[in-house]
């Protein structure tokens, strides 16, 4: 405890606090811009930290990290275009609430949930990191396959109206995800000798196209077709009330835990956590409420946002205790520490105890700052709804273009975004949900490579999946998740037929 207080003391230096504030604000901006992701934001500021003292530098990056994971929800809620992949699930209920004129509340829920999720994960990091780190080590290929399969089974939850169309989108996504070099043997699949396709379709431009560009097209179409005569609802500025928040506590805490655990698993990041938690949120609802999920239920927003910020602390657990990054951003943080000569790993607590506790303190403060800026910024963020739609559409298009380009300075990504945008537009028109494609692009390659890797490890024996409890558990839940709703549906239909 005194170590923590000492850490807090280190953080409350003017220079450090200023950098944390700056980092969080920049992070929120980066996260909010569709096209720039948390990983990119942290990578952008990595060189800046080389000249700084180790802790200050890492705290700056942490500020950017936390801020951007939260920031993605702003664009997701207001513009139906997730600012980062982690907020793709938030867009579902978040934008629905904006259409109902409750944008301010949605933003408020997102900010607070992000803070709660983040703080829970930091708490777990401080209190039980070494014990939890063991979880990271138990996960290898069969478990990752189970997790990926489980994640894919969520497709039915995020399908909105039509599960069939959701499944089609998902399977289409899986098929697309096989384009490129085969993960195990590097055999080029569906590449037609194009160099740019060797790595498959970069998933972020696809996401930007499916969500943002298609939205721009929808807006443009709407404006040409006569435009919305609906006046801007003042209610959008209203912030959430205390008793509304009280009802959401349990969802937030549960989601924070889910996010932390998924963050611990190396290779699973905020995007997976958000979807899994969103799905779990639905499971915990009473029957009557289940219908409202995806149409503006605050629990949807809160489940997704608490989980994606929960990953931030979770990913640091294996990073600090074992030197194994829990997600892509943690990998960059690892690089940042290594460059400074600090080796995260089992000896870190022993050799650099003060550094670690300063980091902990900094993370707590960063989460709090994030909530403060998030909430105080709501009035400002909502103003973007005032931008005339005729200007909003090209703005989104331009932001998406530069965002897609910025990932690898590759114009091919922009072409990908364009095609995805047109496909996304038609998908919106004909009732096909876009989230399953995102899930498939993230989880498809993971499922395939981990499945095949498991079989190489077991020298071809499928029993490896049966022998490992965690893997088996995930697989069973995944299969049940897929089959049960279908069976339920059939039973209900029979009942109706019998009753009629």
């Amino acid at each position, binding site marked *: 405890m005194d170590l923590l207080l000492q850490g807090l003391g280190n953080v409350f230096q003017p220079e450090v606090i200023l950098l944390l504030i700056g980092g969080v604000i920049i992070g929120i901006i980066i996260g909010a811009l569709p096209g720039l992701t948390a990983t990119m934001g942290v990578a*952008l500021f990595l060189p800046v930290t080389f000249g700084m003292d180790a802790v200050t530098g890492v705290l700056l990056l942490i500020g950017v990290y936390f801020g951007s994971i939260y920031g993605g929800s702003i664009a997701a809620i207001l513009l139906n275009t997730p600012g980062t992949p982690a907020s793709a699930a938030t867009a579902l209920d978040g934008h629905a609430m904006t259409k109902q004129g409750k944008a301010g509340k949605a933003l408020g829920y997102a900010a607070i949930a992000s803070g709660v999720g983040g703080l829970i994960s930091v708490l777990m990091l401080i209190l039980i990191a070494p014990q939890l780190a063991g979880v990271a080590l138990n996960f290898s290929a069969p478990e990752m396959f189970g997790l990926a399969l489980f994640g894919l089974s969520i497709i039915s939850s995020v399908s909105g109206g039509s599960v069939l169309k959701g499944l089609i989108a998902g399977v289409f996504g899986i*098929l697309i995800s096989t384009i490129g070099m085969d993960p195990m043997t590097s*055999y080029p699949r569906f590449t037609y000798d194009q160099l740019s396709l060797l790595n498959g379709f970069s998933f972020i431009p696809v996401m930007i196209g499916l969500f943002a560009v298609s939205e721009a097209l929808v807006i443009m179409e709407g404006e040409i077709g006569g435009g919305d005569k609906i006046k801007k609802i003042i209610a959008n500025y209203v912030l959430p009330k205390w008793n509304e928040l009280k009802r959401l506590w349990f969802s937030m805490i549960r989601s924070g835990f889910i996010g932390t655990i998924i963050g611990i698993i190396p290779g699973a990041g905020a995007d997976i956590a958000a979807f899994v938690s969103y799905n779990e949120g639905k499971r915990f609802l009473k029957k009557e409420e289940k219908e409202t999920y995806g149409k503006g239920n605050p629990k949807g927003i809160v489940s997704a946002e608490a989980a994606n910020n929960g990953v931030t602390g979770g990913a640091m657990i294996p990073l600090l205790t074992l030197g194994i990054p829990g997600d892509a951003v943690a990998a960059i943080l690892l690089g940042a520490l290594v460059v400074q000569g600090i080796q995260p790993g089992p000896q870190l607590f022993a050799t650099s105890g003060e550094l670690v506790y300063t980091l902990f303190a900094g993370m707590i403060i960063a989460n709090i700052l994030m909530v403060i800026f998030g909430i105080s910024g709501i009035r400002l963020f909502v103003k973007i709804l005032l931008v005339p739609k005729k200007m909003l559409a090209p*703005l989104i298009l*331009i932001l998406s273009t530069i965002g897609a380009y910025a990932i690898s300075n590759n114009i091919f990504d922009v072409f990908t975004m364009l095609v995805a945008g047109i496909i996304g537009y038609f998908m919106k028109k004909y009732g096909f949900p876009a989230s399953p494609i995102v899930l498939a692009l993230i989880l498809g390659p993971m499922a395939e490579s981990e499945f095949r890797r498991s079989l190489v490890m077991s020298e071809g024996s499928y029993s490896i999946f049966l022998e490992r409890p965690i893997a088996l558990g995930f697989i069973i839940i995944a299969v049940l998740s897929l089959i049960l709703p279908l069976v339920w549906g059939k039973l209900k239909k029979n009942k109706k037929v019998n009753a009629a």
Partner: protein
Amino acid sequence: MTMANRVIGFGLLILSVYAWLIANAFPSSNGLGPGPDYFPKIAASALGVLSILLIGRKEKQDGAVYAVSGKPAVLLFVTGIIVMMVYVLFVQWLGFTVSSALVTLAWMILMGIRKWTTLIVASVLISAGISYVFEFLLSVPIPHGILY
């Protein structure tokens, strides 16, 4: 939407058959575990089955899908899409800032804004603003072509 389901379903069916055939040419298992052909074939088969289901699906409400109707509006919208494609193709050659200003201009005109002050001000500020934020504030290089 029932008609659309049939068309889309049919298109997807063709896609899945095509994908399956190409995937069939990938090497099979090389000893330990399935080869590169395994997953694509499974995905293609699943897509095939689902697309057949889609073809047979009757949509309960057949409401209007598009907000644009009537030849002039549809024409404007299609022009908008073409302008977008031209933008993406030319952003490398012409340079990001200028192309963005042009596409903003074009889209606003298509959507009905006629006041030239609004058009020019919005196009310039939006594209210059975004260029500034990315290139200078965030040090993210933007595509530069013949013009800026």
